[in-house]
């Protein structure tokens, strides 16, 4: 069976097409303003890359903050659920997932079966997301990829505010004026975000193996900072930004939309008759 998962996030669309669990094609691109159109266009490209036609795909499941905009999807699953399914497929020993994307950072505690047990989100704040990294890289006048390499060369830790992306940017400018090296500033930025994300992860509790996914996981400078903050090893799968889409494709293959989840029937004591 051929399935597809489409993860439509705040900044990027990621698509994975699988056949009987094996990945046939991956495609990613910017979401832009018209998310539905972006998803449609990239899906067409993914099909072409896989040598498939639309009718070859049995089921499509969407996820991500704009997953519901994918008109041609057979269904939608929450993004944390997609993350869980994708991660457990790649790293069965995973128990804690840290997903840092463009607009949201979240930590997810999962069961050995890939069920979401608990989650915590860095809500309504850019300071723990890829947007923070982008903003700081512009302030440093260094591409994000270069910033990642620079931070790995740093040998000193400089505390930096991570409570607000605006204040953080202003702080970077101050550090530049103080002639702090770019590598040290780059590390300070990563340490600041790692501190924030580490706090979110501790809300759900850190249990090995800790796996990081999402676009920011491609930043080795940030991953190193996160390991230092957590005091633990952090695994990063290949193409970490495609894991959500893989999870959605896995859900599509499993026919998750057709699962009949029985309503919980709770057998409890009832209040004694006549008791006030």
């Amino acid at each position: 069976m051929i399935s597809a998962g489409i993860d439509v996030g705040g900044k990027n669309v990621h698509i994975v097409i699988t056949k009987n669990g094996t990945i046939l094609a991956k495609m990613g691109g910017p979401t832009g303003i018209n998310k539905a159109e972006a998803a449609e266009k990239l899906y067409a490209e993914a099909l072409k890359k896989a040598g498939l036609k639309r009718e070859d795909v049995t089921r499509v499941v969407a996820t991500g903050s704009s997953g519901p905009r994918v008109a041609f999807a057979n269904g939608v699953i929450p993004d944390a659920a997609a993350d869980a399914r994708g991660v457990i497929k790649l790293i069965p020993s995973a128990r804690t997932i840290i997903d840092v994307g463009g607009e949201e950072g979240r930590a997810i505690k999962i069961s050995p079966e890939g069920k979401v047990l608990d989650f915590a989100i860095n809500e309504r704040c850019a300071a723990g997301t890829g947007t923070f990294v982008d903003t700081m890289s512009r302030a440093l006048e260094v591409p994000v990829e270069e910033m990642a390499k620079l931070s790995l060369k740093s040998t000193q830790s400089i505390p930096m505010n991570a409570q607000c992306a605006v204040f953080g940017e202003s702080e970077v400018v101050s550090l530049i004026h103080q002639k702090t090296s770019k590598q040290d500033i780059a590390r300070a930025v990563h340490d600041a975000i790692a501190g924030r994300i580490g706090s979110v992860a501790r809300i759900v509790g850190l249990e090995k193996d800790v796996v990081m996914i999402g676009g920011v996981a491609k930043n080795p400078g940030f991953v190193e900072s996160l390991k230092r903050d957590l005091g633990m090893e952090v695994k990063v799968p290949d193409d970490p930004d495609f894991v959500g889409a893989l999870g959605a494709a896995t859900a599509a293959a499993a026919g998750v939309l057709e699962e009949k989840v029985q309503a919980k029937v709770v057998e409890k004591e009832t209040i004694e008759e006549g008791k006030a």
Partner: protein
Amino acid sequence: MAKYKIKGLDCWNRAKELRARYYKDYQEAHQRGALRWEGGAWSFDAIPQALEGEVHGLTEEPYGASIGADPALQVRYQEAAEGKWGCARDLCAYLRNYWGSIVLNEFAFGGEWPKADFIFQNHICCTHAKWLQVADEIEGGDIPYFCFDVGAGAYDKIGERQINYVVEQLQDGIDFLEKATKRKIVDEKLIQNVQNTYDSCCYWAKTCELNQAIPAPLDEKTMFSLYVLGTLEKSHKDIADFYKNRLYPEVKDRVANKIAAVADEQCRVLGDSQPPWGFLSIFRYLEKYGIVSVASLYTFSLIGWWKIDKAGKLVPYPTLEEQGITIKDRDHALRLLAEGELKGKLMWAPFYGAKYKNDIVAKIAKQWKCDASIIHLNRGCEGTAQHQMEMKIAVQKLGLPVMTFEGNMADEREFDEGRTKRFIDLFVTETLGLKKVAE
């Protein structure tokens, strides 16, 4: 076919009528030669309401919440408060609504801001300590002001010394009232007001206790509209009558006849803190999954009085009749009022530490047979948002799944409805494993 019968409350219209009348009376008070006062909702309205003649109060928090129920209105009032007074956005959302209302000279229920004749305030939190002081400044600084402290200790630490501490202040308060208004406190009125307060607070608790039934006869969204009367004027005979003789018997009847709040109840949830008032639709969204929010320390104890019995269970505080007490005189009334509030209002306990909140919440979760908890991390109220993450851990240790969402009780700029619904979808479908039972 639905699992349970449902039915609207027969006393619903009476509740609406009482609330509407309260605000109308405050607005029109001066036209009738009546006095107006401003003060806190949490306690002690029995005293100013015992003055000779007609007296009407405006309690701050329900007024702030009423504004909060209208997202457009609250933004306008908050921006007025922030713009005029430069107050920070992390201050109490109700307070910012209230100040904004005065700054704009608007009464949220229509017309100009009705200025009070005196202020009778209790210091239940740092916000309340300054709230009406600043309100007075905004209005010209000439409103007689009295405040008293109730930070006497948690409910299990209340003895004669603590009661005396509050009673002596209340006696000073009576001196203040008589001087400021040139009217006397009428002991018969005071005694009746304290009787009414006991009835309001104890019978609301008894009503909440009935929600232990399966199916729950009430859901929290409905309960918000019912407890609020006690925050307006728990010392009023009509409100005491409502709780004792209308609401409580009707909810008892619903339990006996298995009339549910949610027709397809399949999951009972423990809440916490005030909800985002402008977005109560999230409770209706939960109902699509058969989820009913049955309990919270906030809803139970903002006006309800409780005690921990010998078996360690949370039970309603006994009424004066149940205690076999007849109020003798002014001093007896004040002592009983202070004792009831200090010992019975468990909502004050979290101010004394997370352990208190966790212990009470654990009892609620067990006794009200909760399956999960959804906690509103309320940026608008530091008081009720205390210890929420500790509560999350404590409830998880009971084996209950817990979800949190960030928001603000009365500042819509800090609540993302779409995102919250996404989190709810994740929690209920993945963690709780539920499917929608209604559209």
